[in-house]
């Protein structure tokens, strides 16, 4: 990790310097539209070398999967194969305009179609739309589908969405965006949805339940069949948050178990990179009954030809064009590289890695619910008998060359450290991480200051987030 701070691009700007080149004007000039033009544009002025050094330096100030272990629970920070990047840069696939005639984009449509088919087979759903751009977008699509379904049946009194208290924040937010109210369902002692509490909320105003399975505690919802049945009985639908699908590849198909609609995170399960925040891709899969409501367009095969169609009762477009196509190429590549056996091996090893790490970590950092976990587990990150909290441990891990786990989520676990090793990390890396936690645990007793002031090897130390929020500086002021 580079330690020197890097000036802002504006601060290395110098009037008249330039990186770009452009063809010279080869047509007659037209008068600029008087009164419409801008007077100035204060963008930076740098040479190409300035530019290259600046962004190279910045890159060296990031932890990333390519450089460090990144056990960020709920995020599935698994290795992103380089063949994906190669695939997604094939010019015959990238240099294609979304509004070209269909006959000129048959290759791209074929890829979309085949990815839809593969996701159907993996998940057990009847139909897929690749349009949503991320998980939350997929959730939104899903909730809108549930809404449209009920509306289409004239069932207009359904206004509340049930959401377990362990759910990701996007679940309630997506429900609210669709105009619904949210009812929180508590978890029981084993980390499952509290079935009694659920039943109490089940009536004819229920739009549906948003269920994350495995849930954000990393636990398989043991009563999933009953949960689905309960919801269905009251006329609701079950939405599956597929963020944690990595644990289930080839292990079980959510669509078979009573889930009516689910989003995938191609950027988690299917190795498309996270890009420091995005882009992702959040396809949504549905049962036969909900298929007509999918957002469109989706790809269909018609003899030898592929074409785009809008489902009959579609909720409409969720974004322009067809989704994050560049991510489709990567996900498709990955699925083809793994094959059916490989996908199952992914889930098996993801779960094996998580349980192994849990076994090593939980004696010092006890897990919230002591069950066999799926792809991740949640520990309490504070150290009993000291004033060390999860945040300290998370920050101190950075000094040991590991990224911190997700922390303080799920909200129902105090001092949560949510650890998802993923299947692409080796036993050696897991051992190294467990060793680091062990050392940190004893540092907590012997030298807690080291933890409170961590990290120490980074270009900046702990940052003043309070001031950042109180007096926000969101742009370079010059």
């Amino acid at each position, binding site marked *: 990790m580079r330690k020197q701070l*890097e000036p802002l*691009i504006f601060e290395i*700007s110098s009037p008249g*310097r*330039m*990186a770009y080149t*452009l063809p010279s*004007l080869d*047509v007659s000039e*037209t008068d*600029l*539209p008087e009164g419409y*033009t*801008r007077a100035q544009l204060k*963008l*930076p002025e740098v040479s190409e070398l300035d530019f290259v050094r600046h962004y190279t330096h910045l890159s060296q100030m*990031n*932890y*990333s999967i390519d450089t460090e272990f990144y056990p960020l629970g709920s*995020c599935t920070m698994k290795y992103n194969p380089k063949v994906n*990047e190669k695939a997604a840069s094939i*010019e*015959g*696939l990238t*240099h294609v305009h*979304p509004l070209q005639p269909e006959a000129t984009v048959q290759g791209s449509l074929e890829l979309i179609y085949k990815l839809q088919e593969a996701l159907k087979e993996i998940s057990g759903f009847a139909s897929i739309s690749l349009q949503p751009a991320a998980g*939350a*977008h997929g959730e939104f699509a899903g909730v809108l589908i549930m809404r449209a379904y009920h509306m289409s049946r004239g069932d207009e009194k359904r206004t509340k969405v049930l959401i377990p208290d362990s759910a990701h*924040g996007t679940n309630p937010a997506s429900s*609210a965006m669709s105009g619904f109210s*949210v009812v929180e369902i508590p978890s029981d002692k084993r980390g499952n949805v509290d079935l009694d509490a659920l039943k109490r909320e089940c009536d004819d105003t229920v739009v549906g339940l948003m269920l994350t399975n495995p849930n954000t505690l990393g636990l398989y919802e043991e009563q999933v*069949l009953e949960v689905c049945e309960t919801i269905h009985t009251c006329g609701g639908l079950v939405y599956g948050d597929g963020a944690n699908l990595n644990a289930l590849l080839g292990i079980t198909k959510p669509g*078979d178990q009573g889930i009516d609609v689910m989003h995938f995170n191609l950027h988690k399960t299917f190795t498309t990179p996270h890009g*420091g*925040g995005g*882009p992702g891709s959040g396809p949504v899969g549905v049962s036969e009954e909900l298929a007509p409501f999918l957002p469109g367009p989706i790809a269909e095969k018609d003899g030898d030809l592929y074409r785009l169609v809008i489902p009959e009762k579609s*909720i*409409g*477009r969720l974004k*322009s*064009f*067809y989704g994050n196509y560049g991510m489709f*190429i990567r996900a498709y590549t990955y699925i*083809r*590289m*793994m*094959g059916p*056996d490989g996908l199952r091996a992914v889930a098996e090893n993801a779960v*094996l890695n998580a349980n192994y790490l849990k076994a090593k970590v939980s004696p010092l950092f006890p897990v919230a619910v002591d*069950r*066999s976990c799926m792809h991740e587990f949640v520990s309490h990150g504070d150290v009993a008998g000291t004033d060390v909290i999860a945040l300290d441990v*998370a920050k101190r891990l950075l000094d040991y060359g590991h990224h911190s786990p997700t922390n303080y989520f799920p909200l129902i676990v105090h001092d949560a450290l949510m650890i998802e090793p993923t299947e692409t990390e080796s036993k050696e890396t897991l051992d190294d991480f467990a060793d680091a936690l062990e050392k940190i645990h004893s540092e907590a007793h012997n030298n807690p200051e080291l933890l409170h002031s961590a990290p120490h090897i*980074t*270009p*900046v130390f702990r*940052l003043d987030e309070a001031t950042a929020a109180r007096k*926000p*500086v*969101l742009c*370079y002021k010059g």
Partner: protein
Amino acid sequence: MPPYLPQTEEDQLAMLETIGIQSVEELFEEIPEAYRFPSLNLPRAASELEILDELYGMALKNSTTGCFATFIGAGAYNHFVPSAVPYLAGRGEFVTAYTPYQPEVSQGTLQAMFEYQSMIAELTGMEVVNASHYDGATSMAEAAIMSFNVARGKRRKIIVSPSIHPQYRQVLRTYLPSEQVQITGDEDLTASLEDLKSMLDMDTACLIVQNPDFFGQLQEVDGLAEAVHEAGALLVVVANPIHSLGLIKPPGEYGADIVVAEGQPLGAGLNFGGPYLGVFASRMKFVRQMPGRLVGETVDTEGKRGYVLTLSPREQHIRREKATSNICTNQGLVALIAGMYLAYMGKSGMRDVAELCYHRAHYAASEVDRLENYKVKSPDLFFNEFVVQCPKPVAQINETLLENGILGGYDLQKEYPNAKDQMLICVTELNDRTQIDKLTAALSEIA
């Protein structure tokens, strides 16, 4: 052995022993047995060289903008991407990082995002920019939602200009299906800005216009913001194509409250429609109603400057159902690319490329206009897209153009029933005079 899995058999045995179980299958016993270990009917695993072969094969079934002179825009623009941009944006440390939740080890992403925000603020003339939405269309929908929030839910009407990209208006309607919201203005696809203004009232949350509009026309924006603000509403401007801002007055200058745009032209390439970039900018006074992530400047414990995600109480992970938006994963890497593109082009580059597009587009328009049977509609006030009245159906013309190595313009009739035989032509710095002359020659043959 499947790729990317480092667990050797020996590793697995040791790990099972530590866990205290005999087999990996035991880990899945909580899954209802009837549904456990289904077979997956998928093609067998391909090796790396086989999958690339397969994809190159698919690529051959596409006609690409690399091989065809491309005159289609309509929301996605074929601009040149300087080689340095993808070279750097492709570095593993940027590509394989997550959202910068641990700022101390994410200063690269954070600072780049802060710079992106700053450059977009300058480009749009606005004060605050978020770290991206999914694309221009979803940015516009979020802007509408934000307008409601600014009005604390007391205004339920959104006026949209019919000359906004049709797909953007469709997305808006998907995002706001509720009967309680009234989306209006584009029932009459020929409604003018004056018509829209006349619809403003105390129930209006915002008025949304696109400038240049979907037909490429520069809008007469004088007095627009004043009228909107008079009604207590917000002015939302869709600033597409974003390259126009190299030349044209930024919406911030004429009073926009929210500016959204499609950021794809800023270095992201066409990619058959995605990943693109939702640009979203607003005023500091509305910052707490803004959706999306924001990067802010601060200092560390030693006083050194650093960057963090800030004002997160607007976001879903804190506020859950009360959040300003449900967005979580955004289009970070595309925003990084856009920031890089703006830094690379810089002050004079953005102006120069905009002027080059402008001059070439106007040259193309005047050449086409000279052709018998073709007529350019409103030939003066456009940036780099213009509408041509053709002698035949556009789809038919485009087929012939294809045979001549040309990807023709957008068929307006698809979304505007009145625009019979009208083609929307787009010209960028990638269309040199030779290409333009080839286009006019081919068109004249068809006439």
